[in-house]
């Protein structure tokens, strides 16, 4: 998606999105949405690193954010408490016709819907760092989600040159579950000294053509995000199969994103 020559609108466009949640996801979604002709309001406790574009508008509180929005992207995976707090503030502030597209990587849409006053406008999305680099996003819904909400969400992504796929409402959805389990398995192998992290990454890229080595993928996603997905899968299924490796917990505690902290 070329950006330089695109006409960039200002606050007068009348169309606006709101983005909030985990910082790394705020950055990715804001950057993508900013290339549409809408204003992107970013709501977060502290200002994240964001591209210097006129249509990106940072806010510490919701007060100056318009009530009528095309959609709110609520992208919290790590803290359920914060997620509920944000969702509740969004519901109170935003007009009923504003869609709420919320990350359902660690919590089901059905579970979230049960906590909302207006669950018909809730659409679930597989929001995990790095996934927006690719051409498809996974969506899901609760039984209360309005069909129009799904349809509009599909159109929003179509305009952003992304395909969508609607999957059943399950913790981890499809690609976050597969990728996080691969990262977790690699950290078990690393912990057991099966090989060095460089060799594990090389082996998976050249032995089975993976797009990223699983350790470097974990770093790019953020080990804290991977841990949140594994904890959620284990909690949801009650299966030992999804237990995070002790090393993954340590890596997550380091909150390293994009840098090597373990060797």
């Amino acid at each position, binding site marked *: 998606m070329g950006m330089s020559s695109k006409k960039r609108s200002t606050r007068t466009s009348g169309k606006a999105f709101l983005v909030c949640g985990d910082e790394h996801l705020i950055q990715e979604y804001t950057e993508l949405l900013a290339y549409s002709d809408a204003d992107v309001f970013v709501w977060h406790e502290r200002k994240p690193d964001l591209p210097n574009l006129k249509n990106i508008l940072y806010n510490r509180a919701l007060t100056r954010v318009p009530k009528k929005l095309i959609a709110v992207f609520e992208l919290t995976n790590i803290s359920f408490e914060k997620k509920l707090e944000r969702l509740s503030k969004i519901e109170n502030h935003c007009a009923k016709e504003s869609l709420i597209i919320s990350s359902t990587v660690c919590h089901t849409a059905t579970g979230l819907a049960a906590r909302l006053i207006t669950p018909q406008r809730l659409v679930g999305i597989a929001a995990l760092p790095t996934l927006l680099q690719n051409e498809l996003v996974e969506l899901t819904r609760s039984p209360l989600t309005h069909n129009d909400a799904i349809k509009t969400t599909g159109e929003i992504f179509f305009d952003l040159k992304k395909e969508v796929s609607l999957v059943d409402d399950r913790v981890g*959805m*499809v690609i976050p*579950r597969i990728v996080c*389990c691969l990262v977790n398995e690699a950290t078990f192998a690393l912990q057991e000294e099966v090989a060095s992290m460089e*060799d594990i990454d090389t*082996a998976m890229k050249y032995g089975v053509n993976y797009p990223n080595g699983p350790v470097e993928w974990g770093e790019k996603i953020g080990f804290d995000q991977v841990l949140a997905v594994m904890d959620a899968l284990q909690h949801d299924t009650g299966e030992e*199969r999804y237990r995070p490796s002790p090393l993954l917990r340590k890596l997550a505690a380091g909150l390293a994103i994009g840098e090597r902290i373990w060797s």
Partner: protein
Amino acid sequence: MANTIGIVGAGTMGSGIAQVAALAGYTVILYDIEQSAIEKGINTIYNNLAKGVEKKKLTEKDSEIAREQISTTNDLLRLKDATTVIEAVVERLDIKQALLQRLDDILPHESIIASNTSSLSITALGASTERPDRVIGMHFFNPAHIMKLVEIVKGKETSHTTISRITSLTKEFGKLPVLASDTPGFIVNRVARPFYGEALRLLGEGVASVEEIDRIVKKSGGFKMGPFELMDLIGIDVNLSVSRSVYEQYFHESRYRPHPIQQQMVDGNLLGRKTGKGFYEY
């Protein structure tokens, strides 16, 4: 004979490795007990070399030299001067152990015995010889003449010298070595388990269809192939047997547990591309 490499087993992997060694300038003796297997193996090598020339990956001269470097035999004693023997016989511990015992008797003291096993313990193979320090895993990926990766597997008794000699040899073959400890599935066959296992569970739980999971994995995950396409290509029976082997060797660790869908596909002879039908029809 300082640069002679013996290859035992002229099947897909053995002939591929023979080709790689010959192209790297080594004198190669390709052994198989069956004359027909040798002929088939040599045929495969010649065809692959011709394809290499056609695709301009090799010169006619490279191909000719490589062909001259390879001789064949069905007498194991002919390997007696090899500095390294790489075995690629059937994946059964008793057969490989018996072979290693014979090689141990035949080969010079300092020669290394490397095994292309993908699932057996290098430590167990080493224990069948008097030279466990010179027994090592050298796991090539299929097709061996194309895939860059080689997992070098150190058994409990494998020496540092053996590891460094085989690492150098792998590089001379133009391959990319990674070092793995002798644990079930080594690196690739272990770390890749969730790719198949979770896809099967997602299917079993009705989260999405075969086609939709493959589409998401490729278009949202950036993978070249979806898990179901890949299982069809590998062979659902082969994939199940790798899963089962890792699962059993880890004493039923739940992360590696195979899925009933795999067993059902195998029971129905729906093995993938090779039977014309697996998760997809061909």
